[in-house]
């Protein structure tokens, strides 16, 4: 099984060496500072526990890797330390249901590429 190892701070977890995202081990306030690969970064917004942030700069279309496996693709470029979530990535299988999509009269289903 995979082991946790903290990167630069015990507030961030790297679940697998191949991952390009880190997971927050506790809620982090806006303005929190951290070091990623020797670079100092400041959080531009608060991040709740369990959320993901980019380990390095990535481009739109890049696969996000967590647990050592792809969990979806980026819709927009991200900078190191940037929040990775519904606004900038999507499933490669099925659209995720959110409160917003639930409010729409019809929910267009995504094409599967699997």
């Amino acid at each position, binding site marked *: *099984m*995979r082991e*946790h190892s903290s990167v630069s701070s015990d507030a961030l977890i790297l679940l697998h060496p191949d991952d390009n995202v880190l997971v927050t081990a506790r809620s982090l306030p806006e303005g929190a500072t951290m070091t990623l690969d020797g670079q100092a970064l400041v959080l531009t917004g608060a991040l709740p526990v*369990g*959320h993901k942030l980019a380990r390095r700069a990535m481009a739109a279309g890049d696969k996000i890797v967590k647990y050592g*496996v792809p*969990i979806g693709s980026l819709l927009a470029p991200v900078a190191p330390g940037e929040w990775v979530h519904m606004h900038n990535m999507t499933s490669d299988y*099925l659209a*995720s249901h959110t409160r917003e999509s639930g409010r729409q009269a019809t929910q267009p289903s995504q094409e599967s590429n699997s």
Partner: protein
Amino acid sequence: MSESVAPLQGFVRADGRKGIRNVLVVAYLVECAHHVSRRIAQHFDDLDVHLIGFPGCFPNQYASRMMRALTTHPNVGAVLLVSLGCESMDRDALREHIVASGRPVDLLVIQESGGTATTIAAGIEKVGAMRTELARQTPVPMSLDELVVGTICGGSDGTSGITANPAVGRCFDHLVADGTACVFEETGELIGCENIMAERAVTPELGELIQACVAKAERYYQTMGFGSFAPGNADGGLTTLEEKSMGAYSKSGASPISGLIKPGDIPPGGGLYLLDVVPDGEPRFGFPNIADNAEIVEMIASGCHLTLFTTGRGSVVGSAISPVIKVCANPETYQRLSADMDVNAGKILTGEASLDAVGEEIYRRVKAVAAGERSVSEALGHQEFILTYKSFEPIGPGCLPVRQV
């Protein structure tokens, strides 16, 4: 792995299976008999008098199979069936099935019993008599290889796949080594993990069947428009179904996958089993699992004596018939809802315990609850139950290991 908890004791049934509880079930056979049944069960205000039922009126083979499996679950000692009188459920066949299982069973038909008040009064009298009968049963020694344990996750968030789920996986590894049958489920929440699971299957044929059942789940959810992903999952940091899947998948631990079962199939022996809860055939009944409790009920129908329920956002549910053990993934949720939780796996994130230590704690908790200690949701009186329309074809020969004689 032996721990100094009380030895297991079970109530032995005519089919040789043993229950960890001696529950009396009041079962309504159509929604029209729900109120009368509830009043009968409520009268006793007893942690071992449980209310279950099927709300539908029209014929459904799946519901019939589930009701038979549930009313003859090893944790069930006696049954009162409550019928309106005109619904489709074959009450006499169900009653005969329970009689054949050796359990005391009684039947009330509201249309023949004088209506609400007289049926409630008659039901209270019958349940009272059956409870007296149950109290005379003496438990017998039971071992871990006679136990069936299920796991599901509900109210998942970004912590579920890091703490509670892999910790349950470690517990499952211990239990499988003890000869316990362990069941994990929800092929719709395993989309993206099918190839890894296939590699863990004990035969290549089973691996192919597992891949096919996940492909079926994906098709089903495509037709419905979205997968098994709730808004709370997103609030908690999960973004995609495959991310949720990987987190959910870690509940299965690292043991080989011995078989693939469908709701109501009983694992033939110890080992790790995948429960396929997505209906067969073309999608037509709506979402496969309209709530977590629908999955718990199916696991119980497959013989699970207790269920490990992991939650990050914080679910409070329990279940009729068999105890649910709550494992909280998120340390912040645990602070808010500790009175509903059995195990705090969030302490893995706060550095207070290792994944292995929490896995051991869950393992000890399983043995304690199996030995008779009440789980938290059980003690709080949670008895959520939901059974809806589905259809399944029987499992194929490649789904289960060949039994060693």
